[in-house]
């Protein structure tokens, strides 16, 4: 019996530390493991006893790639708990910050981390020696995303302006308007990105995923919405834990999420686009149509196309928000220091990699009693492993180097972030 083991001890071009282990026998996978060995950082543990106002500064440190998403999910959850409702201009600023993060993170992933796979390069630096123009375009897009984040958040990595109740200081209108000329360039550059990646050759793989994303009545989902799925799930964020559970597996420091009734599911750009294509702005819809891609996309390797369409959506969204921006009258609502009783709040926003769920219980003394954080990569982990299993027949005919690269690429489809996922928390056990 011919058995072959593929192993990558340290996955490259993902955020954080992970390994891959795949055991194949007769064209079938007998074992498929994404091993996340990122050291656990125990965030939920030390969030206990902290004041609500300190939480966004702390949760930002879970991830350097998507800190604003952590701030947005945690501020929303805490505001829900405390009964704070921000004014529409503050809500717009949050969306602006978050879309800036999408631009930065998506440009990073598309150009520097993922595209080299499709073009046969070890990295974007080697790619740039052969084809400098696309890499420079990617870096310029990424820089613009950072500029948006800095204008609203004060800093691109670990923004320091967002807080529970809003923002410490509202940006000046002229500082945001100054970004518009570069955004004009970026809109075309993002559309060019879609054309570029749509022309790549994609390995064949289609799977019947259950896609999960937020859905908003009018907008492409970023900061708000109900949690919906392609199999008919449609719940308010506060009911998240009634439908989703986490299990701990020995080979990973990240918990794996599953839908209680149905198991693995997929979050991220592919899920968002498949569930919300009808909410795309006109430029993003045109870019999707121009690429000749039909939704739903069920080939995970085409996630780079979905991510690029979202680049267009994010740039277009930022432009709309800047054009209508007027500084909020009250950028920051006061946060009560004490409460009549303990309260609970839930928050869920769309991080670049997918939905990011937070729940906090706050005591009457205004301090966090319990925190729960479910990051996108932990939610995708089961799906990633099922993708690897599904690739087994294709791998059988490949040499080891080729097969290994394809498996790595299949993992990079998800833009997984190990730093995010390995911080742990309470879980539901599946014994046996």
């Amino acid at each position, binding site marked *: 019996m011919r058995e072959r083991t593929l192993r990558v001890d340290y996955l490259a*071009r993902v955020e954080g530390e992970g390994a891959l282990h795949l055991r194949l026998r007769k064209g079938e996978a007998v074992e498929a493991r994404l091993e996340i060995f990122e050291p656990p950082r125990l965030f939920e543990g030390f969030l206990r006893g902290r004041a609500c106002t300190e939480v966004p500064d702390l949760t930002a440190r879970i991830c350097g790639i998507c800190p604003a998403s952590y701030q947005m999910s945690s501020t929303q959850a805490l505001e829900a708990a405390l009964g704070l409702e921000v004014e529409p201009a503050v809500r717009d600023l949050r969306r602006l910050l978050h879309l800036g993060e999408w631009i930065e993170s998506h440009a990073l992933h598309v150009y520097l981390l993922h595209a080299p796979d499709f073009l046969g390069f070890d990295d974007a630096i080697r790619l740039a020696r052969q084809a400098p123009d696309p890499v420079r375009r990617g870096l310029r897009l990424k820089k613009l995303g950072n500029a948006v984040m800095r204008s609203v958040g004060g800093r691109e990595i670990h923004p320091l302006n967002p807080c529970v109740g809003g923002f410490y200081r509202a940006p000046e209108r002229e500082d945001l308007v100054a970004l518009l000329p570069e955004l004009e360039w970026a809109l075309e550059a993002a559309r060019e990105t879609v054309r570029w990646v749509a022309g790549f050759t994609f390995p064949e793989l289609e799977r019947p995923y259950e896609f999960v994303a937020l859905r908003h009545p009018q907008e492409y989902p970023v900061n708000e919405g109900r949690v919906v799925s392609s199999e008919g799930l449609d719940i308010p964020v506060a009911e998240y834990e009634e439908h989703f559970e986490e299990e701990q597996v020995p080979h990973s420091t990240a918990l794996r999420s599953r839908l209680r009734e149905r198991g693995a599911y997929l979050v991220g750009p592919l899920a968002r686009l498949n569930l919300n294509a009808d909410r795309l702005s006109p430029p993003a819809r045109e870019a999707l149509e121009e690429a000749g891609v039909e939704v739903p996309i069920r080939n995970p390797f085409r996630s780079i196309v979905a991510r690029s369409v979202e680049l267009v959506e994010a740039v277009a969204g930022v432009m709309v928000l800047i054009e209508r921006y007027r500084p909020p009258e009250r950028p920051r609502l006061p946060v009560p220091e004490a409460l009549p009783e303990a309260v609970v709040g839930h928050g869920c926003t769309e991080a670049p990699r997918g939905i990011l769920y937070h729940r906090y219980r706050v005591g009457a003394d205004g301090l966090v009693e319990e925190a729960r954080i479910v990051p996108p990569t932990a939610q995708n982990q089961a799906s990633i492993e099922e993708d690897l299993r599904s690739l087994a027949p294709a791998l059988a005919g490949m040499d080891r180097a080729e097969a290994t690269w394809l498996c790595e690429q299949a993992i990079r489809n998800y833009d997984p972030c190990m730093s995010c996922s390995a911080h742990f928390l309470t879980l539901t056990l599946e014994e046996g």
Partner: protein
Amino acid sequence: MSDPRNGKRPRPKLAVWKLASCDGCQLSLLDCEDELLAVAGAVEIASFPEVSRAEIAGPYDVSLVEGSITTPHDLERIQEVRRQSRVLVAIGACATAGGIQALRNFADVQGLVGAVYGRPEYIRTLERSTPVSDHVPVDYELRGCPISKAQLLELVTALLAGRAPDLPTSSLCQECKQMGVVCVMVAHGTPCLGPVTQAGCGALCPALGRGCFGCFGPMEAPNPDSLAARWRELGLTPEAVERGFHTFNAWAEPFRDVARREDGR
């Protein structure tokens, strides 16, 4: 050994390593968008898993290390990184002070792990999160949560030129004054860590009207007790004072000790 592509002398080999951290400090290197390709041309990126699947064996001329030591495995890895590196630079609050995960150092870690994990036996973690310099000699440190891109470029440039990098050791207040920002503590009574925190960020928080929360860790020879006393005069409880010092650089000695003294109050 000459570079086969152009016959010039070999470029210095740069490696980037990650321990327990959020990836943000490595991302700072990628965030040098305008300079990134120039840096990549001036050095040979020999090992940088976040960016490349290519890996060139050591030894390395320069290693940048992000993250703190929290596992037995990382304890071994840092020794190996040191052996392989001519110059070792610890980057960011995790690598220079144990980072935010050092908040565990003030708690019973086994209790913490048991409380948060259903299967704590799967988890291998050390009692404490510690900076790189606790375990191996470090040549330079870049502070910050995250580090400053400008300081990173200064460091890389200095190492390429064979000179010492020019990095500040003074307080954030000095930077804040240079920026012309009104003092949030004097004018508004907002607790601020600026007087004891090392400069480097550009006084971003006071410019937004909030107090500094200490991303860059303690400055050279700070007086944190005096600042803590002032915060109590502003109405903070001892617990709130402790939490103020207990963030990303909580395990840096001057901040750690203030917290302990507040505990005993």
